């Protein structure tokens, strides 16, 4: 990348002219709220008001088996959904990049459009399909396949995984497609001419070269999956309850801001660690890819 001026005061001062407003807004309205979150998580709360610092809020979370169970379930739901999306997106990215010809742009647009539609409407459409009185159940009942509605379809962690996967899959498929698109098709053809089967091509060429896209999708998708709460609230029931629901309940319903903000901060910490790991991996995988 080229820059207009060498590093130095002049460039900094001119850059400040552009950056003062955006950085100011973020410092106040992004860093501010995160800092308050951190502060509140260490404050002692009592009926008499708040006073003094404490680690009680974190202790309350880490000692409570219920919270730990919900935390584990959140991780499981996020991980299964992420793996499902990767399993769908790797072949999808390949097919879009090399195998659809003129349909490439329309199909890509279909992916982008699905993300632009309202997420709450999407959640509702799945609930309508899978719910106790949903269409799948009523169709099966009408056909006489079952005699009582299957509750497990909805209000379960399975429903949460399905809806989350469909909601986020564009953000996994598009980066993977983009990094596959950068692969020279001649390389694939040469490999095939030299007798490599599809398995070999996938393992030796496609996956290593698509790795940066895969790690980007981890940052964009895996992290927010841990903080979902609209989807589990509407299709999860009690068995699909996630950590985001606990935070919402503690903050808005119970009014226990100490525990709520401690939980939020733990989630933020987890996000930071995941982001750092994925970022490292994406850098490493790029270097590996360049080295060949």
């Amino acid at each position, binding site marked *: 990348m080229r820059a207009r001026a060498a590093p130095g005061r002049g460039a900094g001062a001119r850059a400040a002219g552009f950056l003062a407003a955006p950085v100011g807004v973020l410092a106040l309205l*992004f860093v501010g709220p995160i800092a308050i979150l951190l502060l509140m998580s260490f404050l002692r709360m009592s009926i008499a008001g708040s006073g003094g610092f404490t680690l009680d809020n974190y202790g309350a979370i880490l000692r409570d088996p219920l919270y730990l169970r919900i935390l584990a379930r959140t991780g499981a739901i996020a991980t299964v959904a992420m793996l499902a999306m990767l399993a769908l997106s790797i072949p999808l990215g390949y097919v879009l990049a090399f195998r659809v010809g003129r349909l490439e742009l329309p199909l890509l647009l279909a992916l982008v459009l699905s993300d632009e539609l309202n997420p*709450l409407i999407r959640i509702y459409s799945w609930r*309508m399909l899978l719910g106790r009185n949903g269409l799948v159940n009523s169709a099966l009942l009408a056909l006489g396949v079952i005699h009582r509605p299957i509750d497990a379809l909805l209000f379960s962690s399975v429903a949460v995984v399905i809806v989350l996967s469909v909601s986020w899959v564009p953000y996994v498929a598009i980066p993977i497609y*983009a990094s596959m698109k950068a692969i020279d098709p001649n390389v694939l053809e040469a490999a095939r001419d030299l007798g490599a089967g599809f398995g070999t091509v996938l393992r030796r060429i496609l996956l290593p070269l698509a790795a940066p896209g895969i790690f980007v999708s981890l940052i964009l998708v895996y992290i927010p999956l841990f903080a979902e709460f609209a989807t589990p609230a509407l299709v999860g029931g009690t068995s699909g309850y996630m950590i985001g629901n606990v935070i919402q309940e503690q903050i808005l319903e119970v009014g226990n801001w100490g525990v709520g903000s401690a939980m939020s901060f733990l989630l933020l910490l987890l996000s930071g660690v995941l982001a750092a790991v994925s970022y490292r991996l994406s850098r490493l995988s790029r270097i590996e890819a360049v080295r060949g």
Partner: protein
Amino acid sequence: MARSVADVQGGLSSRLAARAQAAAADARLRDALAALLRGAFLAAVLLLLYGPLAILVVFAFNDSIIIALPFRGFTLRWFGEALGNPLVRESLRNSLGVAAAITPVSLVLGTLAAFGVTRFRFRARGAVAGLVAAPLVVPWLLIGVGALLFFNRLHVPLSLRTVGAMHVVSTFPLVAAIVSARLVRFDPALEEAGLDLGASPWEVLRLVVFPQLAPALAAAAIFAFSWSFNNFEISFFTAGFELTFPIWVFSTLRHAQNLPVVNAISTLVSAVQVLAVYAAWRIVRGRPGARRAAQVPEAIPELIQR
């Protein structure tokens, strides 16, 4: 000699030809099968993405309060009821108003940030780029909860203004990502040449920079608007007693059965969104560099990777 050399050769080559033919037929069969599999796979993906929405639309026209088969007959009354519902109208008005207000603000802030980060080299550049990208990585739930506690501490009453402020924070980094993905692709030498040839900075901006950025800005505007309109998590925590469209859908469904009125209004909103994205695509496609602008979510990884 019973068989001449020519006979042997002839027999061999005809056998080879037969084998080659069989192999070609095999390959054709394999290709046809592969094409069939690809078609089935793509159809399945599209069905997952759009199937439930299609069913939602069908049941918006069903003449029954219960959403179940069989289909009871065609009606438009749910659309009338939805559009007559004062809460629906209020929530749509609020969501459209907030999105319309924050889009220009996000465009300005995002373009400024993109310029500052891509066009200058200075010591804190990495840190600033990281800060600008951070709201794209931190989950919206956490931004929303943090904002709620923040506004409470500062005794700022929650309203559509606080919703709008937080939408700006979550949206302008997206604009910055899209615009800087475009900026790194064109040559700052053009801007310098303009200045050297005696153009004023304003003229350089208007005549050199803006025409190159226009497709990216158009795409960014559409994405900013729809991110704000669709946002649920941040709005939910910062709206206080105000209603936005996603909040209305959430609270209606939280405590109720599935309702045909929700189908009707969802159908209308989705139809408008489809038309808007399609129109945007058509507008952007007509210009050079349009292919990139049509693939905007790509810009997000681009910013993070840099």
